[in-house]
């Protein structure tokens, strides 16, 4: 029997970690993720888990310890945010290229500088080419559910890639919500036992991880990594379907909210999707045919499926909580990626970008309504008046 608890996003993830009972957790505290590892360390102290908790002196060491433990054959988890992730950088790539299914809870926060502790997506967007699977979560429930699924996805024999599960710092990370917590045994049963194929600790079959790899084979190993990413989408669909059936959920590669009969839509990730739904409902009451698409899977980017889901629209407004400095029109990464997807799959629809909420700047329903109104105007004229708007920045 599952039960409902009042938990913030960090506590929800810590609870998932307790139920997963990973062999090793190596982490360093950083706002707004601290509550996750702090809560989890109490579970370790209280003997609620069998986890070896490695307290390290930095995030670079945290990810290094994760890599070592995962290569040894352990089920490994960590958590971080913003500058912590940035400090992990070198090893973040090594985890992926060594094909180690480490699961990371990433509580999104703006990268310094100037120093800021509040949410935006500059941290996760920086790791988009690092080779990790990236799942986004609207609220604590989704973060909890995604973390549990991430174990299965990353460890799948056809994938073997690390997985980052994102949620917005403070807004959901520290926001108390009603979260359905499943039975410990149900979670254990769903994730199953980890059977590493090439554990270093299998002393009868000695092997080497991370050797020198030059021009003669490095490229072939990168090609294998591409295949792991390519295999991930069907695996995610399979794991998600099983999760949905067992726990009565309705996840997919993305969430379409009142999208089927919509004329225009907003594409958004993480907590702002919740606000956007409220705005969609309000505008629908006024007879305006607006909808929303919420990104769940950012890596691998489900380009074809997204293009198909948006193909009937007359205008699309992407909301980006980060900016890709110097990219085309100084747009956000989600917009650039989606625009490429639409173009590649022959969907010709006016598409605009709205950069918002940098450094935790509030995003209010009225602003999202303005985005929808712009989209409705673009739908009517068939033209994009301004490709990129920096929403609510003071002139």
């Amino acid at each position: 029997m599952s039960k409902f608890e009042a938990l913030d996003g960090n506590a929800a993830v810590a609870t998932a970690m307790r139920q997963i009972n990973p062999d090793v957790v190596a982490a360093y505290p950083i706002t707004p993720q601290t509550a996750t590892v702090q809560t989890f360390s109490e579970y370790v102290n209280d003997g609620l888990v069998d986890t070896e908790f490695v307290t390290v002196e930095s995030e670079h060491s945290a990810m290094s310890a994760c890599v070592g433990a995962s290569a040894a054959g352990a089920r490994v988890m960590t958590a971080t945010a913003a500058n912590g992730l940035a400090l992990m950088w070198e090893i973040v790539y090594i985890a992926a290229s060594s094909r180690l299914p480490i699961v990371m809870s990433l509580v999104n926060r703006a990268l310094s500088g100037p120093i800021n502790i509040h949410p935006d997506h500059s941290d996760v967007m920086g790791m988009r080419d690092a080779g990790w699977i990236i799942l986004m979560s609207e609220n604590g429930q989704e973060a909890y559910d995604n973390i549990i699924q991430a174990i299965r996805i990353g460890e799948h024999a056809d994938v073997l890639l690390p997985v980052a599960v994102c949620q917005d710092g403070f807004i959901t990370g520290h926001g108390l919500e009603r979260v359905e917590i499943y039975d410990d045994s149900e979670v254990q049963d769903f994730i199953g036992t980890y059977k590493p194929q090439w554990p270093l600790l299998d002393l009868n079959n000695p092997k080497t991880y991370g050797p020198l790899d030059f021009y003669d084979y490095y490229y072939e190993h990168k090609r294998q990594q591409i295949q792991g990413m390519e295999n991930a989408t069907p695996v995610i669909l399979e794991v998600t379907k099983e999760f949905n059936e067992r726990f009565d959920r309705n996840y997919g590669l993305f969430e379409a909210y009142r999208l089927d009969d919509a004329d225009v839509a907003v594409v958004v990730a993480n907590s702002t999707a919740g606000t956007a739904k409220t705005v969609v409902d309000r505008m629908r009451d006024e007879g305006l045919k607006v909808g929303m698409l919420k990104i769940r899977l950012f890596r691998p980017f489900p380009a074809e499926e997204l293009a198909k889901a948006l193909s009937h629209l007359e205008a699309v407004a992407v909301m980006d909580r980060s900016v890709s400095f110097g990219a085309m029109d100084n747009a956000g990464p989600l917009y650039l990626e989606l625009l490429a997807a639409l173009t590649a799959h022959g969907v010709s629809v006016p598409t605009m970008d709205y950069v918002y909420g940098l450094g935790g700047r509030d995003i209010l329903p009225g602003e999202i309504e303005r985005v929808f109104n712009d989209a409705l105007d673009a739908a009517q004229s068939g033209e994009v008046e301004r490709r990129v708007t920096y929403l609510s920045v003071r002139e």
Partner: protein
Amino acid sequence: MSELKGWKEIPIGGMILEAGNAVEYETGDWRAFRPVFGEAECINCFQCWLNCPDSSILVDAENEEMMGFDLKHCKGCGICASVCPVNARVRKKAEEELERNDPRLCIRMVEEGKFEEAGDE
């Protein structure tokens, strides 16, 4: 160079799943200088065999005899020539400073591709 394999044929992540397969990696083509025997007779002390970082000194263990160099793997570092006590004796006896390719040495280091010029092979 051994036959290069495709991405579907090799372990993922750069993993090496068999122990001791470094021998398959032929590092001999990195070499700029090649060790060759000179005039001074080898005393089979095995100092070169002990010190070679690439296990590239070939020996006949049964007859306790130094046989030559495994040129598929020798990188030409010259440690064998540096540690050779016969070389040390030849250098000490010579009245002048000897080049490392001097024919009077026991183990000489000759520039790759210049053996004929130096009168070798």
